[in-house]
């Protein structure tokens, strides 16, 4: 190797070749750098293009979804309104023809109408639409029964326990619809002869409604998918329902997120099927709406009766009631407990042993209206005492006198119709 170092030719070559090589190398590097730059630019361009593309696709998709939702929402709104109207008409017909053979058919029609309304309602939920008419607070048992009536095979559903809980007004429809969807799943995925069992159980955080079916159950994959749908804040929308579309869990997920309850379907029922658990937190619960139900029949007794056409029989037979009951040895012919459906109401008068209505002495008012009352009755102003006319003053004074006199005459008249009679 060393012999080459002494060769002048080599040195010559080196001297001549170095600059050439250096230039070549520098030139090459430059080209490479340029190419690299170009490539980077291209890459950036491509990325931005890609981003824009995704964005616009997403945008188009969102817009399409929104358009679909708007269209469906308004369509469903009409259908829901019609179903509601029809339900009212059916209700009236049922009362009108309550004693005839046609009632059976009316009940069937009512059932179909309820299912139809529920379908429209579910689609409306997916479109952020209208959930239905506002209901007043209702007992949990009634909400569960309402849900039961919205599915096809409702006779397979057995409600095992009643409860003392009620659901607040705004949550009545969402909870009923949720349960209806769960029951629909339960009846669809189990054998026709098996029962679906509903239990209501109070828990520290609220109340659980447990739906057990004896169906085939779900595999892990199905459970995961269900859990995802049930817990997701954002609904997959109408286009994300899959084919064939699966409404149930999607609808339930939307309702649960919006009204603040939780639904899980990840456990197995004692019968081998699915156990669905709806947990209603305390915020959605209220006391039993007993006082709200009570005034209802009372309203029917007052002039409003004329408004509700199916009620006339209420008036007719109500009058002879005391006669009937006394004639056949009834203990209490007082019609009040009958019409108000129980004791504890403000109005019903107690009865004596003899069965006569016992009048309660109402203090001085029974003789003459009190100062406030008479003032209200005459000029409608309780404070304005000086404006009372002399006639009024005289009548009040006279009444006062009559009152004290009659009071003195009957020293122990606390009650009329004493029990010892």
């Amino acid at each position, binding site marked *: 190797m060393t012999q080459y170092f002494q060769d002048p030719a080599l040195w010559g070559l080196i001297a001549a070749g170095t600059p050439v090589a250096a230039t070549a190398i520098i030139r090459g590097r430059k080209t490479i750098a340029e190419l690299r730059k170009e490539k980077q630019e291209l890459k950036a361009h491509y990325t931005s293009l890609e981003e824009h593309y995704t964005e616009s696709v997403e945008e188009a998709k969102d817009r399409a979804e929104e358009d679909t939702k708007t269209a469906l929402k308004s369509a469903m709104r009409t259908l829901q309104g019609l179903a*509601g109207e029809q*339900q*009212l008409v059916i*209700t009236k017909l*049922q*009362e009108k*023809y*309550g*004693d*005839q053979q046609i*009632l*059976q058919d009316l*009940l*069937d029609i*009512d*059932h179909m109408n*309820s299912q139809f309304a529920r379908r429209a309602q579910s689609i409306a939920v997916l479109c*952020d*639409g*209208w*959930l*239905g*008419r*506002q*209901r007043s607070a*209702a*007992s949990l*048992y*009634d909400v569960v*029964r*309402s849900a*039961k009536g919205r599915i096809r095979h*409702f006779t397979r559903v057995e409600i095992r326990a009643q409860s003392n809980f009620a659901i607040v007004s*705004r949550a*009545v*429809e*969402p909870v*009923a619809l949720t349960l209806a969807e769960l029951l629909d799943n339960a009846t669809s995925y189990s054998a026709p002869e098996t029962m679906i069992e509903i239990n209501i159980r109070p828990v520290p955080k609220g109340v659980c409604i447990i739906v057990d079916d004896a169906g085939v159950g779900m595999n892990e994959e199905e459970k995961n998918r269900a859990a995802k749908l049930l817990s997701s804040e954002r609904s997959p929308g109408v286009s994300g329902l899959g084919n064939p579309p699966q409404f149930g869990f999607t609808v339930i997920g939307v309702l649960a997120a*919006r009204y603040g309850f939780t639904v899980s379907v990840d456990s197995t029922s004692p019968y081998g099927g699915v156990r669905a658990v709806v947990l209603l937190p305390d915020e959605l619960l209220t006391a039993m709406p007993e006082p709200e139900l009570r005034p209802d*029949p009372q309203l029917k007794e007052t002039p409003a009766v004329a408004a509700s056409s199916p*009620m006339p*029989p*209420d008036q007719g*037979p*109500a009058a002879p*009631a005391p006669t*009937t*009951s*006394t004639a*056949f*040895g*009834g*203990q*209490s*012919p*007082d019609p009040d*407990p*009958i019409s108000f*459906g*129980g004791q504890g109401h403000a109005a019903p008068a107690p009865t004596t042993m003899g069965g006569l209505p016992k009048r309660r002495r109402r203090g001085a008012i029974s003789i003459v209206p009190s100062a406030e009352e008479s003032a209200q009755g005459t000029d409608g102003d309780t404070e304005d005492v000086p404006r009372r006319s002399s006639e009024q003053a005289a009548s009040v004074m006279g009444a006062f006198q009559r009152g004290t006199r009659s009071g003195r005459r009957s020293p122990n008249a606390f009650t009329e119709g004493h029990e010892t009679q």
Partner: protein
Amino acid sequence: MTTPDDPELELEAAPLVRAYVITNGRSLPADDEFSLITLVTAAQDMPPTGQLDPEKRRLLDLCSGGYLAVAEIAGHTELPVGVVKLLLSDLTQAGYLYTRAPVPPAKLVDRRILEEVLHGLQARFG
């Protein structure tokens, strides 16, 4: 979801629990079991009522005051008469209620006897 200013919210809503759910889809009883004037009253020694449906408890409340006609009972509830009859029939079979045939109409009285009485009276008093 429901907008509070929705005008339709003010409209009347049909009862939450539908009649066919109350009957649980069973077919309605035949007409001969209960007529509109069949009389019903609560039994003296009633089984516990805890597990009964609210509608049945209400019927028992109505009947607790003495004999009432089916038509009257139906008038006090908001249920169709046929449904009330079914519930009453359930309650009767379960021992909560006694029923009593309507007051027998006068047709059972023999017309001949009445005529004889009439003739007797006419003969006696002119």
